Every structure is written in structure tokens, then in C-alpha cells.
């Protein structure tokens, strides 16, 4: 009997305390150092989170008594990592050819996705694309929290074009843009026909009016009838015939709409870059456009990518590339393409070497190697945080620790580029969604 009473009291107390915290919704992280990502490191530093947003960053801040405090004085706080391209855990077949309307939304079972592995590696957001070749869909950015209510952050982010062989590249590009052109023409034709009909209807109406005036009241009733029947014939506004959804994003590109998605081109050999240019320049509408400048390069495979480094730098390209050593063909010599690109002024976005849980876990270690070979530490960290966030159009929400941005943060047991560094806690919108201590 007594025990029951005590539990009652305990339960009451517990309920009250959670209510109190929830009411304030203020969380404070006391970290050993805070790497803001804007070039500042505050150590020790504190970050105040309210309503899932960062409200204050500083040192020895005054903290309300009832705030929830995360003590991490021996840890480093930084912005959560952003994965700019992945197809992990998707179900369904690979897409090939032209399928720009394909997304991952019907290709995953949310409950069965291994979100933990993303969080363990520190990724708070990821851009998912369906696996495949050619124009194999569009990217969708999602939160990686296991139980997110609004998982989708942004749809229709970019159009991946994956090049496997140059012959199929030319085929795919001509197939895609010829198709898109036909769709445009189809709509144009329909509009012309509609315009024609409208004009005819107008003329008919005018003639009817004239007749009306000539004939006087006698036939008024008949004319009215005729008018009515004509009005019923056509719709009042032009309705475009439906386009092939697989081609709509390409139509946007051809019509140079502002909503057109950028093309992200994956190449597996340096020569493909020239082939992509040649294939794109064969599309006459794209002739006067800048050469393609967003590329995904393979990381650790043999390939003479040093041959195109200068060209990429000249284009000020955005390059998604796994940090890794490229081996010069037929030699044991290594050339560090990511470091060279970064030094040359390209926007480098790091990808895991393997699109898997272990690939994501090992990513910081390989990135540290690029720092050793000439990439600046700032660029290296940016290549996983602010650079992908900005490229994906989420620069105002995440990527750095700044006031007003969402509190997508990670706590590490050292700097991201230290050997053997581990993610200790991952937070999405101020909530700890993954904690190493819980495991």
C-alpha cells in the first residue's frame, strides 16, 4: 500500500517536471568548443536553442534556471552533416533512360530505413535519388530523424544524369531533349488550334450580330439560340494537353524557366566531361548556355581525373567527390583530385566512398587525408556542411551554427578531422535523435 502511494507521488512529480521543461522549450548546449562553420571557433562555448532554432551563440551566457542543459564540456559542437546524394536502402529497380519524374518517395518503406546509420555518421539531412543511369529521377531532401513528422524538406532539388558509356550518353540526351521538344510543340499546337477556334467563334458571333441587326427582331430568338450553342462548345480558358511527366523537368530546362532544376552529371571517366559538352551542344536550344558545371566524380577509382582538374577550376564547377586518392593510370602515383579542386577554387562537396553505412562512417577519416594533402580545414568541413546545404538550397536553414538557423547539430569527441573521431550526439531541430550513450 505504501509503495503504491510513493509511486503515485513520483509519477506526479515526473509529470510536473516534464511539463515545466516543455513549457520553456529552451535547451542549452555547453560544449568544449563550438565550430560555427562561419570561420569562428568558440571554446568553451554555449549554444541556446529555442523552438528548435538556434537563438544565441556565445561564451558564459546567462542561462535561465529551468532550461534543459546538455553538458558536453569535453566535446565539440558543429553543424550537422548534409549528404548531397545517396540511394541507400531504396527498394525497387534501377531507373534507366529518361525518367525525370522518378522520385524515391515510392521507393522506400520509412519504418525499415536505417536512419540510425545516417545519424551515427552525423548526417542530419540527405538528398535521395533513385539509383540508375541516364536521367534517372529527381532528388528529394529529407530529415534523417527516425520518427520525423515532416520528413521531406524539399522536393525537386536537382536532376541527376549518370553517364555510363559515351554512346548511351548521346542516345539518352537526344532521346530526352527531342522528347521534351515534342512536348513543347504539342502544347504549342494545341494552343494555336485553340486560338484559331476562339477567333472563329468570335467571327461567328460578330456575323451573327450583323445578321441580327440586318434581319431585325424577327430572327432574334433564333440567333440567340445559335450563340448559346456556340458558347457551350469550347472551354473558356486554354487547357494545355498533359505532358509526359518524365519529360516535364527537361521542358523546364529547354524553356529556361526559373524553376528548372540544375543537372548534376555523374561521370566515371574524365573524357566523359567532353562527351557531355558535345552531347549538350547538340541540343540547339542549349547552345548558348554555359557548359555544364555540376559534376559527380568517382573517388578512389583509377582514372586520369587530373586531366580535367584545370577545366573544372576554369568553370568554377561544383564537384561532388568522395575524398580519396586517385591513382594515375598505370602508375603507383597518387593525385589528390578533391584537394586540387578545392585549392583551385571549386566548390567541393564530399560524398562517402561507398554509399553505405560504413562508407558514411569512414568519410571524415578520408577527408582528413585530403587536408593533409592540401585542402584547407575550413573547406574540408564546409564540404560536408555549408557547401552541400547551400547547393541544395537549404543554406538558410542548416550548414552552419548561426542565429536563426535550425538546430541540426552534432556533438563529436574531438574535431571532425581528428583521427578516430566519433559522433556522440546528433540533434535535429534541437531534439537529440541519436545518442552514443544509449547504445
Amino acid at each position, binding site marked *: 500500500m505504501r509503495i503504491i502511494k510513493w509511486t503515485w507521488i513520483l509519477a506526479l512529480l515526473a509529470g510536473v517536471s516534464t511539463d515545466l521543461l516543455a513549457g520553456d522549450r529552451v535547451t542549452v548546449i555547453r560544449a568544449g568548443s563550438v565550430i560555427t562553420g562561419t570561420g569562428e571557433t568558440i571554446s568553451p562555448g554555449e549554444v541556446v536553442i529555442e523552438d528548435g532554432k538556434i537563438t544565441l551563440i556565445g561564451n558564459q551566457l546567462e542561462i535561465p534556471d529551468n532550461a534543459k542543459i546538455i553538458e558536453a564540456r569535453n566535446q565539440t559542437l558543429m553543424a550537422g552533416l548534409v549528404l548531397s546524394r545517396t540511394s541507400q536502402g531504396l527498394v525497387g529497380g534501377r531507373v534507366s533512360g529518361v525518367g525525370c519524374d522518378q522520385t524515391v518517395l515510392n521507393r522506400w518503406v520509412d519504418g525499415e530505413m536505417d536512419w540510425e546509420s545516417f545519424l551515427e555518421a552525423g548526417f542530419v539531412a540527405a538528398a535521395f535519388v533513385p539509383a540508375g543511369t541516364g536521367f534517372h529521377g529527381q532528388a528529394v531532401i529529407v530529415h534523417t530523424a527516425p520518427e520525423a513528422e515532416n520528413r521531406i524538406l524539399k522536393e525537386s532539388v536537382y536532376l541527376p544524369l549518370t553517364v555510363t*558509356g559515351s554512346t548511351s550518353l*548521346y542516345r539518352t540526351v537526344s532521346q530526352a531533349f527531342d522528347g521534351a521538344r515534342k512536348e513543347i510543340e504539342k502544347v504549342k499546337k494545341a494552343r494555336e488550334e485553340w486560338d484559331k477556334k476562339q477567333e472563329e467563334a468570335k467571327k461567328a458571333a460578330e456575323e451573327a450580330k450583323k445578321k441580327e441587326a440586318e434581319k431585325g427582331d424577327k430572327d432574334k430568338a433564333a440567333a440567340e439560340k445559335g450563340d448559346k450553342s456556340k458558347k457551350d462548345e469550347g472551354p473558356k480558358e486554354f487547357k494545355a494537353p498533359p505532358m509526359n511527366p518524365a519529360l516535364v523537368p527537361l521542358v523546364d530546362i529547354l524553356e529556361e524557366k526559373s524553376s528548372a532544376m540544375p543537372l548534376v552529371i555523374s561521370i566515371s571517366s*574524365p573524357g566523359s566531361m*567532353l562527351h557531355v559538352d*558535345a552531347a549538350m551542344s547538340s541540343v540547339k536550344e542549349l547552345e548558348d548556355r554555359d557548359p555544364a558545371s555540376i559534376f559527380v566524380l568517382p573517388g578512389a577509382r583509377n582514372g586520369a581525373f587530373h586531366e580535367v582538374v584545370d577545366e573544372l577550376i576554369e568553370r568554377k564547377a561544383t564537384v561532388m567527390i568522395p575524398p580519396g586518392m586517385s591513382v594515375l593510370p598505370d602508375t603507383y602515383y*597518387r593525385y589528390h583530385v578533391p584537394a586540387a579542386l578545392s*585549392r583551385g577554387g571549386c566548390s567541393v562537396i564530399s560524398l562517402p566512398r561507398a554509399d553505405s553505412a560504413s562508407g558514411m562512417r569512414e568519410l571524415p577519416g578520408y577527408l582528413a587525408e585530403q587536408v593533409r*594533402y*592540401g585542402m584547407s580545414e575550413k573547406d574540408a568541413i564546409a564540404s560536408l556542411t555549408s557547401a552541400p546545404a547551400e547547393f541544395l538550397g537549404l543554406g538558410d536553414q542548416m550548414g552552419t551554427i548561426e542565429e536563426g538557423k535550425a538546430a541540426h547539430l552534432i556533438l563529436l569527441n574531438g574535431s571532425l578531422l581528428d583521427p578516430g573521431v566519433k559522433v556522440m550526439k546528433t540533434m535535429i531541430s534541437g531534439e537529440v535523435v541519436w545518442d552514443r550513450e544509449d547504445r
Partner: protein
Amino acid sequence: MLKNIRIITALLAFVIVFTDMPVIPGGYSLSESISEAQDPPRRRRGRRRQAPPPAPEPEPEKKEIVAADSEDEYLVIRGATLHTVTGGTHRNGTLICKNGKIYQIVAGPVDGPEGAEVVDATGHHVYPGLVAFRSSGLVGSGEAEKSQDPFDLDTTMGLAAGITATWNGSRVTKLVHGSLEDLTIRPKSFSSINYSYRNPRGRSELRRAMDRVQEHLRALERHAEEKKKDPEAKAPDDKWIKGIYATVRSLLTGQSQALVRSRSMAEIREYSALARKYGFEIVFELAEEGWIDPGVLSRAGASAVISPRARVNANEDLNRESGSSIENAKLLHDAGVPLVIIPQNTGIALWGLAGRDLSHLPLEAAFAVRGGLPEQVAIEAITIEPARLLGVADRVGSLEVGKDADFIITDGDLLSYMTLVRWAFVNGKIQYDKEEEGILDHIRPDGDLDAPPPDDHWPRRLGDPLKG
């Protein structure tokens, strides 16, 4: 009858007195020379039988060169020995190219137009870019503009071997590094036929097809005649001409040549007889036993694509000559057979073929010289002859005014084992520079036997990875 006999005797006397022909009844040399006299090869290049005329020591001449238009790109190669292949050799000549074409060949030192890119090649030799009859991996397949990997190391290796053009099986293509423009010279295809004695049915089918198509072609000729009189004459039906018939038609009308790989003399005889009977052009690849009876190839008007270093063991069971011979190239050439030389392996392999691949094309030709082939002919066999056979002799294969500026500059005689390509130019642009490319730049830099490798030997040039 008596009159006839008299005429014949008179003729015979005339022949014996006025020609120096040795009359040995049944003698080997006589029968051969007579058979050759009676049946001269239909296509013979008399010029090829003589040694090349000694290069006339040219008078250094001064030519006025119009001041360069600002838009024209001039390239001047000075101080080198120009081996034009088809037009003699000029010591200390000057080669002037304009917009990717050969503009002037001057047999002496002259100043180029203002603003021209000048390459001082004193002590070096200029040859037309080598043409590899066949290759794999040097250029893309099919239409190279759409399939080539422009940064393929094999392309650079090919250029380092002096090759600037090759046939990829369907097109004659240039070797260009880092660009996808101006690669294809022209499409080219050969017809393949099977007339092997191991396949009697195929043989009879081929012969039947030949007969039928020949009859059809005659019918066409008759029809053309008829049409002059009767404009409404009906043309012979040609809907049945498909498959093997189409191949045969393109052969018999001279639109294409037959390309046959055959090693043994017996096979070469069979194919040559067929080519002579139906009158089509034939090219023999391999042809290791061609030396046994080169007159057969010669009479059939055949060309030969040979690898002088290829070996075929003699068959001891046969009561006649067999197997390969170092003299193969020489004997075929002596019989008037146009020769093309390629190595046995038509790729580029870096794993120890002992140079029997395309990275050592000139050495293959040099081996034929070892067997007696004149040096000039050996050089032709890797430049102008393959260009002729591939139908691109108007563009590449020799240094001639108006041809493409595809040439190589070597640090010695082309066929010497010491010689390396110093520069390779395609379309008037440097595609390979031994010192820049660094595949071979550590070997005898500047022709010096004992010089150490350069400090910035590739890939060290890419930078010290630790210094960044």
C-alpha cells in the same frame, strides 16, 4: 599454214636476237619470267621496283611568304631533315603549315611568316605521322567523336610511337589527346569472305553467289544498252541482292576490297585464284608464307598487310617450302606487291610483349629491312601505303602540300632502335611532346645517352603531394 610457220620462226628469231632472254627449255627462271611477261600484274607500281632516287641536294631557295593574316595560324618547323616519303628528303628543310594543313615544303632554311609558331628542330628528322593499319584501344570504336576517351593513355602511347592515324575497324581516325574534334578522317570498311578449303560448302556458295552477281551485272550492262533504244526497258530485278550477294556485289563492282586473313600459301593461292577469276581487289593480312610464291599475290593484284617478326614454323610433313621467312617482305616487294607493315599485337601493352605491339611500329618495319627490304619501302609501308589501302592517302601518309599537318619529329632515323619521337603533331597542333608528357622523357633526354632524368619528370610535375 606454211606462212604461219614462217611468221612464227621469224618472230622467234627476233625475240632471241633482240632480247637477252636465256633460252633454257623447261628452265625455272624462264618459265617464271615468261609467265610474268604473259600475265603481268594488273596493278603494279613500277616506281616501287627501283631504289628511291637519291634526294637531290636542293638549292636553298628563298620564297616570299605573304605576311600572315591575323586569323591564320602558321606553324614553322626549321632545321630538320624533312622525309616527305613521296617527294624525296630535304636536309635542313623548312616545313610550313597553315591552319592545320601543310602549306609549303621548302628545301632550305627560310623565315616563316610573322607571328608563326616556330619549332626549332635542328638535328631532328621530320616524317609524316605513321599510319597503323589496324589498332585496338588507341582510338574509340565506330565514330570516335562519340566513343573516344580523350584522356586515354593508350592514345598518348600511340602518339609516342609516332602513330597519328589508324583504322578502328570502321573508320580511319586520328589520334588526338584531350579533344573530340576532327578525329574521323573517313569511314572505311572491307568485305570479309570465306573461301577456306576447310569449308567446301561455303566455297561453293560463294562461287555461286559470284556467278549470279556477275550475271546480274552483265544484265545491268545489257539493260543500259537497251535503254538507249527503248527508254521503257525493264531493269533486272535486284531485290534478291542481300547478305552474301550484297557483299559480292560491292566486291565485283569495285566498291570494296576483300580483306582476308590467311597464313598459308595454299590458302593465298585459293583466294588469289578467286580474285583473278572474278576480278576483285584483295588484301591479305598475315601472309607469312607469301614469300614462297609472291607472284601469285602479284598477279592477283593483291596487297599484303604483314608482320615481319611473325613466326610460323615450317611443316616438316610437306614436300615443299612452308613457314615464315625473314625475307617475306623483301620477296613480296620484289614481286610488286604493295606492302603494309603492322605488328602482331595491334594494341598497346605495357606488360612485356617485347615490343611486338603498336608502341614499336617502326621496329617492325626495321625488321623487314633486316630481311632485305629497302629502307624507303619499309617507311612507306608504315606511312603512305596503309593510307592508300585505307583510302586516306589524300589526307595523310606523306608530307605534301595540301595534306593534313600530321607529322612526327624524331631524334634520329625513324627505323633506328634508338630513335624516339620528340614531338607528334596532328592537324598542326602538338599532340605529344616527349618532355612534357613524361612517359619517355627520362630516356635519353635531348638525345644525351648519360643525362639524368629531368627533375620534373611526370608525375612529379603534378606537385609534391605533401607540400600541396
